[in-house]
């Protein structure tokens, strides 16, 4: 038996067990154990794929263009590995931060639903299967975002729900039309057929536009990002950390996958669109973030701006550009999740996330301050953290492919990011507050080690960020091989169909 289906079976097993087990402690322990299993599995797959290049499984022994293919190349394996780290950390964090009522009502069942959807999307070898895994992920995320039914949460979830459903309709309508035109759903087979038709029959091929818009809504790209800042700050912190780390990135992953497989044949049409979407997401996300005064809202707007970096890396469409995009995607998942985790802890301590009411956290909680410092300034791109390497690679790729202006824009956006992060840092951690009463309340609450699990989770992510920054060279080399595989898509086609 091949190993790839285990990525789906492990979360599936948890879902079944969670339906029968009613004891909260056992469920928590189980979720942690299976999270670790998933991590070990992801590491093992990364190791195999690093040596072998690609892995595939034909479900039900049906040969490639007809059956369901699961396939993992280096890019997928990297994404699976990073999302396994993020998922493990968030699970650890949730055990402590999510309230009893939610844990009892099968909170973890739905996070594992998200894990199943994310893993499935990363290894899906045909486009309808990709849609199904998207839906698995979305259904779980709908439930998680409205779980608990507080007023703000309901408002956020309605916006989230309706826009994401519409993106699903775009996506599935695109798949239908694509199937009608091409007669195939397998990604590799589609790529082969696209490479054979030569010149494009019509620039405004409706199915591809529908697919692109569907992915752009899911990945929160300009001009389709409005649902994200309207909803990500409403659910419990652990949930928004999980969403920030995993959900939009799957949309971006799919965009990179279809762009490298078949959209690039018509890059005279698609490339400017993608490039401008990237630049505008980057700029608009970061500028809107500067005007916000809510911790999680600033971070939400930064998701949009950072997704823009990945997309311009894709739009350069060189080996170094794609490698930078992959590296940046991994870095962003780790740093963003960790920033949200710290935001969740601040919310727990002070019961507010408005920057104006916060302050003076660093003196009392130095460790959390350091953890936030690491993730925030990694997002801003300070050495030796992972963000520096990511931004350096993107800008270097931009200069190499003669997109000097784009590279300059990316640099300036980095400056604005630094500004926002400094703002959070000063307002939340550095500023002196004169509210003495508030202080004494806090002191009672935080003696001993009350946040053991939460802080461990955050430390895991912070360490990964540092590792990714300090040992950037081997990771960047790995990303470069992955990018070479993506650009040379004949290899993927031959591997899947052969």
């Amino acid at each position: 038996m091949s190993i790839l289906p285990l990525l789906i079976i492990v979360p599936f097993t948890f879902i079944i067990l969670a339906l029968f087990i009613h004891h909260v402690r056992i469920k928590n322990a189980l979720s942690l154990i299976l999270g670790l299993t998933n991590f070990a599995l992801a590491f093992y797959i990364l190791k195999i794929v690093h040596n072998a290049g690609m892995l595939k499984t034909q479900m039900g022994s049906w040969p490639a263009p007809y059956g369901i293919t699961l396939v993992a190349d280096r890019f997928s394996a990297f994404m699976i590995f990073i999302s396994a780290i993020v998922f493990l950390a968030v699970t650890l964090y949730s055990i402590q931060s999510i309230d009893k009522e939610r844990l009892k009502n099968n909170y973890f069942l739905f996070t594992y639903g998200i894990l199943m959807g994310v893993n499935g999307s990363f290894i899906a070898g045909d486009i309808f299967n990709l849609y199904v895994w998207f839906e698995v992920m979305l259904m779980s995320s709908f439930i998680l975002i409205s779980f608990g039914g507080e007023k703000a949460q309901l408002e956020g979830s309605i916006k989230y729900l309706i826009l994401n459903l519409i993106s699903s309709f775009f996506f599935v309508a695109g798949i239908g039309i694509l199937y009608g035109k091409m007669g195939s759903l397998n990604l590799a087979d589609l790529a082969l057929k696209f490479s054979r038709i030569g010149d494009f029959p019509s620039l405004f091929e409706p199915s591809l536009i529908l697919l692109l818009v569907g992915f752009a809504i899911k990945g929160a790209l300009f001009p389709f990002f409005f649902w994200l800042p309207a909803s990500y700050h409403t659910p419990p912190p652990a949930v928004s950390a999980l969403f920030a780390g995993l959900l939009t990135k799957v949309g971006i992953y799919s965009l990179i996958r279809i762009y490298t497989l078949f959209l690039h044949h018509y890059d005279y049409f698609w490339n400017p669109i993608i490039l401008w979407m990237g630049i505008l997401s980057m700029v608009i996300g970061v500028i809107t973030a500067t005007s916000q005064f809510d911790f999680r809202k600033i971070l939400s707007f930064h998701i949009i701006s950072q997704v823009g970096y990945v997309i311009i890396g894709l739009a350069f469409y060189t080996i170094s550009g794609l490698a930078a995009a992959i590296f940046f995607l991994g870095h962003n998942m780790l740093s963003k999740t960790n920033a949200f985790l710290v935001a969740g802890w601040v919310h727990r301590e002070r019961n507010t996330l408005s920057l104006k009411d916060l302050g003076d956290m660093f003196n009392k909680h130095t460790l959390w301050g350091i953890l936030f410092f690491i993730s925030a300034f990694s997002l801003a791109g300070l050495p030796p953290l992972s963000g520096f390497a990511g931004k350096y690679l993107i800008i270097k790729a931009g200069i190499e492919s003669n997109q000097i202006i784009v590279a300059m824009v990316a640099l300036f956006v980095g400056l604005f990011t630094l500004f926002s992060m400094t703002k959070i840092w000063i307002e939340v951690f550095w500023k002196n507050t004169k509210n003495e009463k508030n202080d004494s309340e806090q002191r009672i609450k935080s003696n001993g080690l009350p946040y053991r699990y939460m802080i461990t989770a955050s430390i895991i992510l912070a360490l990964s960020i540092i590792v990714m920054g300090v040992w950037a060279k081997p990771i960047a080399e790995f990303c470069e091989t992955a990018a070479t595989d993506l650009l040379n898509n004949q290899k993927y086609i031959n591997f899947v169909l052969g």
Partner: protein
Amino acid sequence: MELILAIFIGILYAGGVYLVLRRSIVKVILGIFVLANATNLIIFLAGGIKRSGEAFIAEGKETVDLATISDPLPQALILTAIVISLGIAAYILALKYRYFEVTETHDLDQLSKTDQK
């Protein structure tokens, strides 16, 4: 037949978009259902429709004549999409019920509490 179905899908999309843009949450939800059905019909239409037999291999035979059967794949896709929209319908109605309980309004313009002042 294709033309009639295509026009019908267009009408469904127009109606769905109109409903989704309304202020009342009930109408938005109805719009979502209409859009879901229009999308299912698109898959059905894109798969090609013609008067033909079901896609089963007859008893005792090993192969099937491709000219006489209809393509089973779009139907399988639609079945999947319908099941997914069944789940979403149940969820979204429950959400609507809860939303009305908490906010006591159908008006989506009241949804501005979480926005920045």
